[in-house]
């Protein structure tokens, strides 16, 4: 009976068991590692040379699916840190961070307008590590955008788009667009004022297009205004369609680099006279297993730590404004900062610039003809729908426009200058795109907004609750040094009993800022017949209502005008300074 079993399973005699079991385990390990024996694994981890011939570490790359996406080796010089700065690598890292945190967020997020905002609040207030996941996802998104731009600049300045890498560059430009679109579609999902209006303004660009413009707008929004349909469309694009497209293009992009043309050698190695020795060292193989991999594990540990440290020290916090309200356009609609350049461009009106240049010339020469381009050219259409796609095409065409074969910076002064010029143009446009730039707000509105923006903190909201004292404080009246001399409180009695604040310094400072700026505006003639006050009322046992109120007469028509905004300040609302 036992003998039959022994034969059935090929079990050797007892004295051979040790080597027999060892062999069996080794076989399994080889299958799992796609070619490495236990001994070999040990050598890999210890950094010893391969134990067998042919090198089993290369075998892994042909047999394993995951590993076959990776290079066998890179030449030493192309792994110099100062050559790549690991920018493309970190872009991929952020993409993976986004995928992992995104899948977790998907478990809790509900893509319907009446529940979306609530589900975000739920994530923040009722899911263990929910805020961490949301912050990491948002930070990772910004990281991916930043790093793909930096990576683009790096490949541009090292001239890596030339020669065999033109197609890699092209897929890279597509990846830049995909990254931008992923972040834009994700921006809508929290369904707060920020999200709703940034995306409404963003999609409205297509509206100015001829014929298909409005249709395209409807296609994106699902209806004339973004609603249930629009949110679902953005959601599905964000969690399914574009992640899949991104994976596809990252794979193509990376496969080119890893398996076809490798990372470019630094131009100094390829194009300058160097010794044979240096050349040999530059081309020394850095194998995937173990050197590239161990380095990547190191990079992962840096990246993870950096992300967590930023979140731990609260250097980054995902914004969440009030619930989206299609009826109330906020004063400043904010696109994410990496789209400010586009927003800045939309503030340019090319037709009137040309008119202003050309018409004075006509006048000088005495021709009565006046160019009226504004009637023909819709600036939103030009700056929103013609110029940006034009720029993308230009970016794609760079390898074909730049026919200079050298990649050495000193041989391509024009390309370098051109690249730097664009960096400055984008920065300048971004500056113009900041929400405040070039947008005139009436002084009373601006002053109250600066005191207490519609969304977020501002000095008024930071007044400690204990300092709020009911009263009507009239601008121009003299209240002495402090508005409430009869008030005293302990800011944090648990930590420091002896710390007592007398009066209401914060409330007084806010009132002073309010008064000073208003009186200044009055003196400049913007607010004649100024009559303003700050009203502080106790509405509930633990909540005050604060209303800055301004009346004036219109400087031109003389009509009576008034502006006020009401704020509610609850005791439990955190006031972080």
């Amino acid at each position, binding site marked *: 009976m036992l003998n039959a079993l022994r034969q059935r399973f090929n079990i050797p005699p007892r004295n051979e068991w040790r080597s027999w079991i060892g062999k069996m385990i080794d076989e399994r390990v080889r299958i799992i590692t796609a070619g490495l024996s236990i001994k070999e694994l040990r050598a890999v981890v210890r*950094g010893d040379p391969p134990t067998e011939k042919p090198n089993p570490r290369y075998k892994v790359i042909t047999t394993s699916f995951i590993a076959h996406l990776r290079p066998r080796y890179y030449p030493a010089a192309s792994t110099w840190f100062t050559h790549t700065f690991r920018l493309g690598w970190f872009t991929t890292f952020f993409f993976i961070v986004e995928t992992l945190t995104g899948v977790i967020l998907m478990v809790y997020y509900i893509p319907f307008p*009446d529940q979306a*905002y*609530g589900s975000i*609040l739920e994530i*923040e*207030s*009722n899911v*263990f*590590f929910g*805020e*961490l996941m949301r912050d990491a996802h948002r930070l990772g998104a910004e990281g991916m955008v930043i790093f793909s731009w930096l990576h683009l600049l790096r490949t541009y300045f090292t001239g890596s788009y030339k020669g065999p890498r033109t197609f890699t560059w092209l897929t890279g430009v597509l990846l830049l667009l995909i990254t931008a679109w992923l972040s834009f579609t994700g921006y809508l999902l929290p369904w707060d004022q920020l999200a709703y209006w940034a995306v409404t303004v963003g999609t409205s660009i297509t509206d100015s297009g001829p014929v298909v413009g409005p249709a395209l707008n409807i296609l994106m929004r699902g209806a004339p205004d973004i609603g249930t349909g629009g949110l679902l469309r953005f959601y599905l694009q964000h969690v399914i369609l574009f992640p899949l497209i991104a994976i596809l293009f990252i794979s193509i992009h990376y496969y080119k680099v890893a398996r076809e043309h490798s990372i470019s050698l630094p131009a100094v190695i390829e194009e300058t006279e160097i010794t044979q020795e240096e050349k040999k060292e530059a081309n020394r193989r850095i194998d995937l297993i173990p*050197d590239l991999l*161990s*380095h990547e*594990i*190191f990079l992962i*540990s*840096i990246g*993870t*730590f950096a992300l*967590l*440290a930023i979140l*731990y020290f609260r250097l980054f916090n995902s914004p969440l404004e*009030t*619930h989206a309200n299609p009826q109330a356009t906020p004063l400043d609609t904010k696109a994410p900062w990496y789209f400010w350049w586009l927003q800045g461009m939309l503030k340019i009106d090319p037709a009137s610039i040309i008119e202003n240049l050309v018409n004075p010339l006509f006048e000088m020469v005495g021709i009565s003809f006046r160019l009226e381009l504004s009637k023909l050219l819709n600036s939103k259409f030009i700056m929103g729908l013609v110029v940006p796609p034009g720029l993308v095409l230009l970016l794609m065409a760079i390898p074909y426009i730049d026919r200079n074969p050298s990649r050495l910076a000193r041989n391509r002064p024009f390309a370098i200058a051109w690249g730097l010029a664009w960096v400055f143009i984008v920065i300048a446009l971004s500056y113009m795109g900041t929400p405040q730039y070039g947008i005139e707000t009436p002084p009373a509105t601006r002053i109250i907004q600066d005191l207490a923006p519609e969304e977020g903190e501002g000095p008024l909201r930071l007044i400690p609750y204990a300092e709020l004292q*009911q*009263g*009507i404080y*009239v601008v121009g009246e003299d209240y002495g040094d402090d508005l409430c001399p009869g008030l005293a409180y302990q800011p944090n009695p648990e930590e420091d009993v002896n710390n007592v604040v007398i009066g209401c310094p914060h409330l007084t400072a806010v009132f002073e800022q309010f008064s000073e700026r208003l009186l200044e505006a009055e003196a400049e003639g913007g607010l004649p017949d100024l009559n303003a*006050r700050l*009203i*502080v*009322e*106790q*509405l*509930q*046992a*633990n*909540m005050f*209502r604060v209303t800055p109120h301004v*009346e004036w007469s219109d400087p031109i028509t003389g009509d009576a005008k*008034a502006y006020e905004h*009401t704020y*509610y*300040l*609850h*005791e*439990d*609302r*955190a006031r972080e300074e």
Partner: protein
Amino acid sequence: MKRVQLEIILGTVFVLLSAAIMIVLGIREPQRLADYEVQQRAEEIEFGASVFVTNCTRCHGTQAQGITGIAPSLRDNHFFTQRIAEVGWGAGLEDYIVSVVTTGRQVSTRPQLYVGGGTPAMPTWSEKFGGPLRDDQIRAVAAFIMNFEPYALGQVPTVEPLLPVVDESTPEGRGQVVFLQAGCNACHTISGLSTGTIGPVLDGVGLRAATRVEGLTAEEYIHQSIIEPSAYVVEGYADGLMPQTFAETLTEEQIADLIAFLLTLQ
């Protein structure tokens, strides 16, 4: 030291630091969640206050204190302690508020006391039934009303509401105060002061009062409008909407101040 060794050491340090951060965050997480919830409730109440002020004050008064004849107080002891038993509501008060506000009130349950806007007494507020408010706004306004509890139960002394700055040494100034205190603002719009819509706009009433009823001066007409509204009903408005009780609730002096104030609205 070889580069790879340095990387191994640094990498280990970073992994340990990352783990430490996660542990610290994990220990703090329950507290953070609790804090966030408190904060969230505070924000909801603030938001509810703004919803209340834009939608509800014209019937329930600027501080939810109610307006005689129109709509009940939402901050008194009765509302907080007896109301749900009175109407036979099974669940809590906050749910009651959400439910009433969502659907509105076709007819008042106390028509002799509170007529509201007639029919419906209180309109439907939920977006789902054609009203203007989303669910989260309704929940927020309920949170705001619930926050009157310490006042309603007398746990905290109520603070007298503030009144706009006016010169109280003149009858016109005092009249403006009476206008707000008596709740006239709930039904009448005066630019810059009030936004009620149930009764006529009172801008310019000082001018037209003289021409309303033959034989009555402007002063006499306004006096009559206040103490005896049905004597002359402005065209387009139903008789009986304006409370008939001001003759009793206001003193002669207050009415005189009111008239002086209304006459300034030329």
